[in-house]
């Protein structure tokens, strides 16, 4: 990296920090000056206080949401990548599976909550079901598009060099599709989180969604906002993990600028 680029990047970090600091300062002033009632928007100080007053509850609920989300995501990634790859690579699978999924896709994720509760009751199973279902579609769709849109000359070159159908699937279609699969996984994390928070909020006895719901019942805006911050942080951390994995697997996509 040249020193000029480094300087620009350092400047960007300074700007980021200034932006966040100004936002928090304005928020704090607005509440202190009673421009907004603290009943609706707690002051930044009151939000930070939650870290100390609700430590155990916050830690436990964050942990539960994190574990449930990771489990749901892994289920969705496994099924989504498998289904997307098969549907994208084989026309027969495409004709059979795609219409069903197109139909299901139009149902909002939250609308699955009542059925999930009938099937699995209130608990971890129904949460994983709704969250995994929400994460599934972007993962499936991106993988499908990736496998479907592999450059034809790659596939021809593969067969020309003696590759079997299996080799073409695993050694050509799969690596050629990874550039599409990763954005799908990132969207999957976000959708999975949305589905999970919704069902935790609606029907659950634990997790950040549940904690928010309870705090909301008691008009504790500071706890609600802290929960929102934790949700944002979790989503960000998981997405960054995927970004690192993407860099590791897609190094060959680097472009010289």
């Amino acid at each position, binding site marked *: 990296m040249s020193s000029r680029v480094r300087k620009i990047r350092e400047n960007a970090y300074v700007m980021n920090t200034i932006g966040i600091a100004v936002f928090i300062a304005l928020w704090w002033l607005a509440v202190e000056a009673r421009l907004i009632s603290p009943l609706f928007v707690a002051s930044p100080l009151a939000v930070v206080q939650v870290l100390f007053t609700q430590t155990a509850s916050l830690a436990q609920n964050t942990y539960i949401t994190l574990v449930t989300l990771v489990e749901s995501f892994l289920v969705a990634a496994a099924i989504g990548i498998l289904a997307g790859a098969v549907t994208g690579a084989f026309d027969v699978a495409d004709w059979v599976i795609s219409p069903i999924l197109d139909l299901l896709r139009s149902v909002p994720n939250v609308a699955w909550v009542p059925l999930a509760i009938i099937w699995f009751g209130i608990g971890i199973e129904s949460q994983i079901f709704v969250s995994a279902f929400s994460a599934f579609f972007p993962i499936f769709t991106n993988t499908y598009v990736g496998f479907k849109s592999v450059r034809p000359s790659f596939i021809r070159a593969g067969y020309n*060099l003696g*590759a*079997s159908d299996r080799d073409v699937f695993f050694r050509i279609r799969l690596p050629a599709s990874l550039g599409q699969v990763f954005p799908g996984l990132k969207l999957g994390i976000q959708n999975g989180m949305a589905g999970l928070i919704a069902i935790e909020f609606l029907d659950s006895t634990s997790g950040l969604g549940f904690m928010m719901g309870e705090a909301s019942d008691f008009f504790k805006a500071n706890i609600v906002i802290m929960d929102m911050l934790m949700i944002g942080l979790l989503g960000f951390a998981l997405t960054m993990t995927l970004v690192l994995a993407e860099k590791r697997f897609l*190094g060959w*996509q*680097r*472009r010289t600028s």
Partner: protein
Amino acid sequence: MAQGNSVLEVKNLTHVYTDSRSHVETEVIDNVSLSFQEGKFVCVLGPSGCGKTTMLNIIAGFIRPTSGSVVFEGKEVKSPSPERAMVFQDYALFPWLTVSGNIQFGLMMKNTPAKVREAKVTEYLEMMGMKGFEHKYPFELSGGMKQRVGLARALAVEPKMLLLDEPFGSLDAQTRRTMQRELFRIMAQAKKTSIFVTHSIDEALFLSDRLIVMSARPTRVLIDIELKSAKPRQRSDKEYSEVYEKVDKVITAEVSKSIE
């Protein structure tokens, strides 16, 4: 090597392309018969979009013809095979593999032991004048280098025949000239029966033992001549200028026909 031995026969080849949406049928190849001799470097020339690439794809086994057949060493071609290795216009290098990974891809498909594969990679990179590029990725290479790797990858499977589909079509004029000389040098070393599709008359005259000129769609054979003079040819050579003039006239007429 016995000269005049026919390796590949194209028999009454006709191909009609049907558009999958509009169902409009376009006749691309019209009853073409050709025979390719062992060890010869044959150039196929024709106006853009005339169906010469389609013919090459049928010879490779990527497409099945509407009627007629391609017979390779006595057997009808029904699917692609490393015996007829292809060099693609868009290189078709696998971007997720290194130069070495690309060159040995075909050998891996044959379960060739790693040591042999490594030796082949070294051998062909040396032939291409690209020693030390083993661990580069395709995105790090220039167009000319990419096509050298494409050529090395095709040669590494030790094909009986080499099919080249406008391999220098995406290169700038200067690199193209260099690559033509390089290909001439490499072919003198590798001595492969080859079919080279191009729309550049100069390129064809520079490289070929035999020249086939195809018409606009539906394509037929217009000219089929053996070039006798020694290679590499110069523009000032008598045969070069004679054939150039003749071919240029025919192709220009075909192009204007297809524009009308």
